């Protein structure tokens, strides 16, 4: 008996020793966990697109310039100047000299080619991951008209952006806004539409009457806006293609404003003021039938649909101060989502559905901010004398808004900012601008 116990103890000690030894030894490959990275623009190179015929010689540099500007404007990419290039690209099909591009720390390389035949423009490109030594995705080709060369460049940039970041781009999109001229006391306003980067501005209305709050339809072919043409605010639907419009009739003696399309493109949600009370209504555009969604004695306005069309976020002062609420698309008891200090307004639901952008007024300053749809994780992105009217980029990554400077000579202009709060930059327009509304990506 004693011999067995002693034997067992010896076995225990030996096993424990062996186990510890084995545990200390490394099993299989070395394993490490990386949790801290860096956030910096990704360096890329975009040589001039190779002209495949004589007529396209000038177009190649222009296309490359727009592509580079699109990518660099996101703040996620950094263009390597052409003066640093070691290799020259003269043949679209030639093998890439990875070592030359690696030497200048280019991590992505966009090589393109362009050909012009009459009024037809053909643009093609390839994207290379330099450090992987391989092409990123397949080559892509676009065809269009010479006049639409900027759109072709935007589409190339969208494809590059999408392949590197994994999310869709927003470059081939347009923005409708209110173009403003003159001093504050006598400001002329008219509707205008432009590319997302401020190029190609076209005016949709004249400045004979006050226009406000234009909003693109989900398909980008129509615009809702409010006009004081008759002295009272009324909502109009404007066809962007042929600039024809029609009014959305509202009840007699009431004022309608702050319209916005539902995701289905057939329903419009708007505010209607009757007497001293303002409530939210929806209207079926084809039939003109309106439905009242709120009936509180307070002011409810600035409604915005969720991307799935099931909910509406709006602002209301029913609690005594201007706050944000969410209710079902069919009406019902709203739920308050903003609880911070200050006043919240002009909420807009992100195309991704995860965030709500808003304007916040607090301590004498205006902010553009975002919060989760449940009101959590509020994050203020900007701060100035007057920031207002956020609108989302088609991919939900960027917010455009307008900023007005102080004083009688103050000017209103458009800005964009990433949802991280970085990359705040002005959007160049020929005149002042306000009330931007971003279109979806163009087909």
């Amino acid at each position, binding site marked *: 008996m004693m011999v067995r116990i002693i034997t067992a103890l010896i076995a225990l000690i030996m096993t424990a020793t062996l186990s510890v030894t084995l545990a200390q030894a490394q099993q299989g490959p070395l394993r490490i966990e990386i949790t*801290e990275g860096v956030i910096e623009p990704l360096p890329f190179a975009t040589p001039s697109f190779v002209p495949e015929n004589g007529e396209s010689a000038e177009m190649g540099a222009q296309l490359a310039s727009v592509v580079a500007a699109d990518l660099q404007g996101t703040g996620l990419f950094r263009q390597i100047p052409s003066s640093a290039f070691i290799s020259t690209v003269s043949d679209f099909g030639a093998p890439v000299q990875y070592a030359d591009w690696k030497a200048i720390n280019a991590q992505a390389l966009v090589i393109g080619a362009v050909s012009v035949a009459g009024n037809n423009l053909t643009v093609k490109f390839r994207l290379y991951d330099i450090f992987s030594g391989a092409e990123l995705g397949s080559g892509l080709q676009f065809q269009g008209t010479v006049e639409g060369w900027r759109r072709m460049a935007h589409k190339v940039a969208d494809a590059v952006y999408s392949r590197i970041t*994994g999310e869709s781009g927003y470059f081939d999109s347009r923005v409708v806004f209110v173009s403003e001229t003159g001093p504050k006391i006598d400001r002329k306003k008219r509707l205008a539409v432009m590319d997302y980067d401020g190029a190609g501005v076209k005016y949709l209305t004249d400045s004979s009457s006050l226009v406000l709050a234009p909003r693109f339809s989900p398909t980008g072919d129509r615009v809702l806006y409010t006009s004081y043409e008759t002295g009272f605010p009324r909502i109009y639907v404007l066809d962007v293609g042929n600039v024809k419009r029609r009014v959305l009739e509202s009840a007699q003696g009431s004022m309608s404003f702050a319209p916005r399309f539902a995701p289905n493109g057939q329903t419009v949600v708007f505010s209607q003021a009757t007497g001293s009370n303002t409530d939210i209504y929806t209207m079926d555009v084809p039939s003109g039938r309106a439905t009242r969604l709120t009936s509180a004695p307070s002011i409810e306005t600035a409604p915005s649909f969720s991307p799935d069309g099931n909910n509406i976020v709006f602002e209301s002062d029913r609690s005594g101060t201007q706050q944000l609420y969410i209710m079902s698309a069919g009406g019902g008891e709203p739920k308050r989502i903003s609880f911070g200090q200050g006043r919240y307004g002009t909420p807009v639901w992100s195309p991704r559905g995860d965030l709500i952008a808003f304007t916040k007024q607090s301590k004498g300053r205006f902010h553009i901010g975002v919060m989760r749809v449940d009101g959590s994780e*509020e994050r203020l992105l900007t701060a100035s004398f007057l920031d207002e009217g956020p609108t989302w980029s088609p991919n939900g990554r960027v917010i455009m808004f307008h900023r007005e400077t102080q004083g009688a000579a103050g000017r209103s202009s458009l800005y964009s900012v990433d949802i991280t709060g970085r990359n705040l930059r002005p959007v160049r327009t020929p005149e002042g601008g306000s009330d931007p509304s971003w279109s979806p990506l163009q087909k």
Partner: protein
Amino acid sequence: MNTGQVISATGHAALIGWLMFGGVFRAEQLPIKATEVSVISGEAFAAMLAAQDAPRSSTEVAQPAQPNIENEAVDVPQPDTTPAQEIPVVAQAPSADDAPDMTDLTPLPEAEVSDEAPVLPTPEPEVSVVAPVTSDRPVPRPSDRIAPEPVAVPEPEARPDPVQQDAVEQADTGEAVAEPQDATAPDEATSEIVTEAEQPAAALETSIRPPARRPTRPAVQAAEAETPTPPEPADTSSAVNDALAEALGQAGDAPSAPSGPPLTAGEKDTLRVAVQKCWNVGSLSSAALETTVVVAVSLAQDGKPLTSSIRQIGSEGGTAASVEQAFATARRAIIRCGSSGFKLPSDKYDQWKDIEMTFNPERMRIK
């Protein structure tokens, strides 16, 4: 739980199981002896007791042996001699003083007694100390984060020159150029310049995002990390052989362990830092920032990654597209920062020739 703990726990569990069920502590059945007994009645028992003799007291007590006393005289120490002391000299007592001469004494003056009460001097009025009125707690004043204007340089104090000097004529072209002095910021200013995008002023108004739950190890890794089922113990008679067989059996099922000493924590940290400084997540989508990928890579002896060996062996979260983006970014990081070779001890190459890197962007998400 790391691999070492798993092995140790499994070994112990197997040993304990073997000890409990292997029969080590099983007691052998002892032989049973049967004894026949007879039943007697109470009277018979009492009669039996009475028949026994009463106990006898014993008076013979063994005396302890007397100790042998030695009669040899013991040297007694002699007492110390009394030291000689000097006899003090008794001082002579002083003689009594002579009686004083009292003839020339002058009589004491009589005391002047007055019935009037003395007039006490009026004390100085006490100055009462007024307790200070407790002021309200000071309310902090809003201060500008950045001083609107620098404080003006103070005028230098005028000091008479002890030596009179001749007036200096002003040069035609010379203009007195004041030496540049550092502007002194007001007391409430701060050295931090607040930009709009950084928005520290608004930071207090934002809700604090609760720390996200640490993701579990990817499924692929979890599957690999599962402890293999220990084999059935060999039916041997030796307990030592059983235990060794179990322990060695586990080691045999595990992947082949590289030889040599393992990398130290510092060496692993060096590798980790080298990779993460090239792991640029700035261009990743939100979905890709929710994706953890595990990438396997083999290194050459000079520390350079073998590009063809880089492969994704696991992922967690995100979509297929986001996994692809996350892997591409991780791959780029390994190649970029390993282009000149990772700084790893060459004598431990067997330990780091194959590496599995888990790229977890949890801390890099938009907050």
